[in-house]
């Protein structure tokens, strides 16, 4: 076996080990690198949407992901919530992911108290935000909320009747809120586009995992007004709100990982081409 064939047949565990060392190293020495995050129009449009809302305006944020996608989607959830709390935009929270309820409830409490200490606000449950919980069958829930939130959610996550919450006063369906931001890791993104936007025509933006991002670009400008894709999108949002957090901290590791993978792709392809040539020439 010549060196080219060895390059092609490299045990994938060496690749894993190399990637582990590179990513871990880049993460621990993240303060030594400076990654310039450029903002894109699709992320900026969501930021501008929230920024241009008057204090007291209401939006619905659907946290349709579970702890397995927390790493990717929590940074964007945090960035959007922090902007809302700072601006005084009121947030109605819901989750259409069966494993998401506890995680979302904790996120609201955590980010609410972070906003209090950072912006000197007093984020209050029921007034500034509420969490109406989880119901199964997302398509039907999205359709139901288009008629009346109370069909599927007569009570919030804490068993309080929706009518007793100040934030829900005068809110019957999507017509009574400014828009919907769905942060999602699965097929609920399609359901928000199809059952939500196509049926009720409310302003809709999506925050999705990296794997999903390219699938939703075709909807930009027709069904959705903004799109945040994975950590890069979250890092852009963190830059826009002026707060560097988890996504920004992970960017040096991302750059290092991408360069490593490009390097391995090049090595693999060069090895493949050279071994094919050496076979043809019989050497």
């Amino acid at each position, binding site marked *: 076996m010549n060196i080219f064939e060895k390059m092609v047949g490299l045990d994938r565990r060496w690749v894993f080990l190399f990637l582990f060392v590179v*990513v871990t190293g880049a993460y621990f020495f993240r303060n030594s690198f400076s990654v310039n995050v450029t903002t894109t129009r699709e992320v900026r449009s969501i930021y501008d949407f929230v920024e241009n809302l008057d204090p007291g305006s209401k939006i619905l944020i659907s946290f349709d992901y579970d702890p397995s996608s927390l790493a990717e989607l929590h940074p964007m959830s945090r960035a959007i919530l922090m902007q809302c709390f700072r601006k005084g935009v009121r947030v109605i929270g819901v989750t259409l992911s069966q494993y998401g309820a506890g995680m979302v409830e904790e996120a609201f409490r955590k980010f609410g108290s972070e906003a209090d200490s950072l912006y000197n606000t007093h984020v209050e449950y029921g007034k500034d935000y509420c969490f109406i919980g989880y119901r199964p069958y997302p398509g*039907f829930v999205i359709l139901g909320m288009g008629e009346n939130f109370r069909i599927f959610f007569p009570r919030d996550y804490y068993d309080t009747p929706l009518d007793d919450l100040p934030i829900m006063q005068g809110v019957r369906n999507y017509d009574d809120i400014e828009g919907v931001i769905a942060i999602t890791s699965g097929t609920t993104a399609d359901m928000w586009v*199809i059952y939500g936007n*196509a049926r009720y025509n409310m302003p809709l933006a999506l925050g999705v995992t990296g794997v999903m*991002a390219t699938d939703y670009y075709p909807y930009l400008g027709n069904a959705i007004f903004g799109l945040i894709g994975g950590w890069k999108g979250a890092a852009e949002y963190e830059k826009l709100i002026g707060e560097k957090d988890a996504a920004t901290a992970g960017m040096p*590791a991302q750059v290092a990982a991408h360069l490593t993978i490009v390097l391995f792709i090049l090595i693999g392809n060069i090895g493949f081409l050279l071994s094919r040539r050496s076979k043809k020439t019989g050497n």
Partner: protein
Amino acid sequence: MEDSHLVELLWTTFAAFLTFATFSFLYKDNPFYKFAEHLVVGVGAGYFVVLLVLTSLKPKLWDPLLAGQWWYIIPGLLGVLMWMRFSKKVSWLSRYPIAFYIGTSGVAIPLYMYNSINRQISSTLDLSVGFGSLTAFWGIIIVIGVLTGLMYFFFSKEHKGAFGGLAKIGIYVLMLGFGASFGYTVMARISLFVQRIAFLESWGRMIGNFFS
């Protein structure tokens, strides 16, 4: 150290053990990985059952029935019929709730049509949707990309001559799409890994504080 801190440390240490057990699969399959995998599936299934009972069965069936709204027995019976699938003799009864479910999904057909076909065609042909000052130029590139991409999947005509050339452009367009998807997928996986590294870092700090 308070008991609550010790309990938190123990649970976090268990989570760190599960993280290592999961990563051990990268070397090869092993009992630690199997344990972590089965634990996730078991806990997830149990959690979902309880959640369904508390968020659906109780408020949407049990409570209304107790309140005298007897007509809720109809969806309840439809739900029971679903379970008939487990009996060969009466499994045909499960077709009724399935038919009902599929029927209600019919609302999606015109919406899918409108969203995935009508809207996409009009957006593709709209040259005002693009990037920066070269909006029309990128609009034309998108139209060419879509048409050549579709040509690649047209197999009723041999891919030769001018048609073959256009289909080849379509392949490059598809490759660009796959490349973008791959780049995003790498980012997604690395995000998960970095978050685990961050967790292990905080666990290490917790251990250090405990012993100091």
